């Protein structure tokens, strides 16, 4: 969908900034300078204001992500369910290192809580959430979803 089409779905007022940015992120995969300019113009806001919001939130990206991002929750309850063992298993499977940017295709990161502590350990591949991930089952997820 073109940016203009997305913008027209919203009333042009400042309160819609975050909702607009989220929709662009969903359709476009990222919010770069070009999109920020269109949003700022549509909502009659300074470009800096649009960019400052786009660069603030976890779910918005200001650059296109070329790598698959795998995330493991490091919150206390997930730790208690051995999320670090899951991380080690992924490191071995993909020959990557946690929080290291070197691999051309994959990146393994720790993430903040997404409120599913009763179903941990939680793992994410891009925007998809996996629950109750065990070191034994992570191989399947990696081979099917990566």
């Amino acid at each position, binding site marked *: 969908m073109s940016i203009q089409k997305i913008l027209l779905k919203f009333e042009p007022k400042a309160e819609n900034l975050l909702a607009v940015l989220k929709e662009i992120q969903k359709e476009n995969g990222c919010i770069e300078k070009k999109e920020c300019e269109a949003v700022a113009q549509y909502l009659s806001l300074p470009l800096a204001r649009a960019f400052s919001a786009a660069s603030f939130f976890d779910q918005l990206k200001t650059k296109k992500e070329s790598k698959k991002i795998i995330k493991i929750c490091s919150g206390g309850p997930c730790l208690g369910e051995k999320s670090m063992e899951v991380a080690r298993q992924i490191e071995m499977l993909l020959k990557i290192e946690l929080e290291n940017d070197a691999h051309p295709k994959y990146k393994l990161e720790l993430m*903040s809580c997404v409120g599913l502590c009763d179903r941990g350990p939680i793992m994410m591949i891009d925007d998809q959430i996996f629950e109750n991930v065990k070191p034994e089952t992570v191989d399947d997820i990696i081979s099917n979803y990566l």
Partner: protein
Amino acid sequence: MKLITRHWEKINPLDINSYIRQRGYESLQKVIRDMDPADVAVEIKNSGLRGRGGAGFPTGEKWEMAAKKKSREKYFICNLDESEPGTYKDRVIAEKNPHQIIEGILIGAYAIGAKKTFIYINGNYKKQADILKIAIDQAREKEFLGKGILGSAVDIEMEIFEGAGAYICGEETALLNSIEGQRGEPRLKPPFPPSEGLFGKPTIVNNAETLANVPYIIRHSAKEFSQIGSSTSPGTKLFLLEGAVKNKGIFEAPLGITAQELIYNSLYGNGLEAGKEFWFAQVGGASGRLMPGGRLDQLLIYGESEYPIGSGSILVVDKNANLKDFLLSWAGFFHRESCGKCVPCREGTFRLWEIAKRLKNKDFREKDRENIEDILWTLSNTTFCPLGKFAATAWTDAMKMFGKEIFS
């Protein structure tokens, strides 16, 4: 004693009639037909209800502040942003009984005279946002919200605002900034939101669990509510038991209960999993204090308390756990979630995270030990908002309790 979870099994979250059958929306009818807005705030004040998001501020007092402000526009916001590690109580309320929250918001909005209300929901709670949207539509059809509620002259609109993944937006002023279309950074207080909040207008921000208590108080009276739980912080609380306990999950218990009882009573945690030995418990999520075995008898209450309940999560850690994983988990979380507005927090959480990584890789330097003390002091005393203080809480306790093990 169950107030919040009491009808959960009988309620279909997608059908408003199942809530109405459990006397749902009776409290809303009562306030709209028989009560002055000022009386509603007084009733909530007399009940002694305190905010369940963590700070424990008396809800009725907050409402009175906003109610007394003269302004044509006022806002009432339900804070459903919870992103504290170990906390998912508000998510469960929203998916089990969304109307309980909606009714609480409507009563609050009526009490302060707000025409516009928001539910600020965590960006990861997509399913719960959908459930709430359906619930709002059904409530509108029944004339519980919208223009001329139940045939009266009261108009209250409700909108869902979805966040985009930022822990700091649970802080009320950061939440307001984020709704206004700004970076979710906290504002300087005062002015407090009840006098100058969203778009500079009087605004109440209440946690979802707090609001879920409101219909009960109105229906049964402040007096009845104030006799439940502890005298200084009445009512019940949703506790989340996690980690090495046998029964994990969400449990409703009266305030004034002890962690001992929650962990070992068969009604709740039912002790530790086989073969595990208690080491410490973390009360209140990643920003909570560490409670040693000898202090499990402390009463869990809001107000003056050595171990603040926070959001109500209790993480039990057993002796086989790796403390360095926890140190890295806490430091990493606050480093990622620091909004970057003030230097002590932005730099402090970053350096603490670096040290945590070195500790984990057993490559710490002698200077780190000194620096930790320095950073923790700075975070506890000089940051702009409470996030910095939270970042230091568990670390400070860990240094006191397990200093030797950390540097071994």
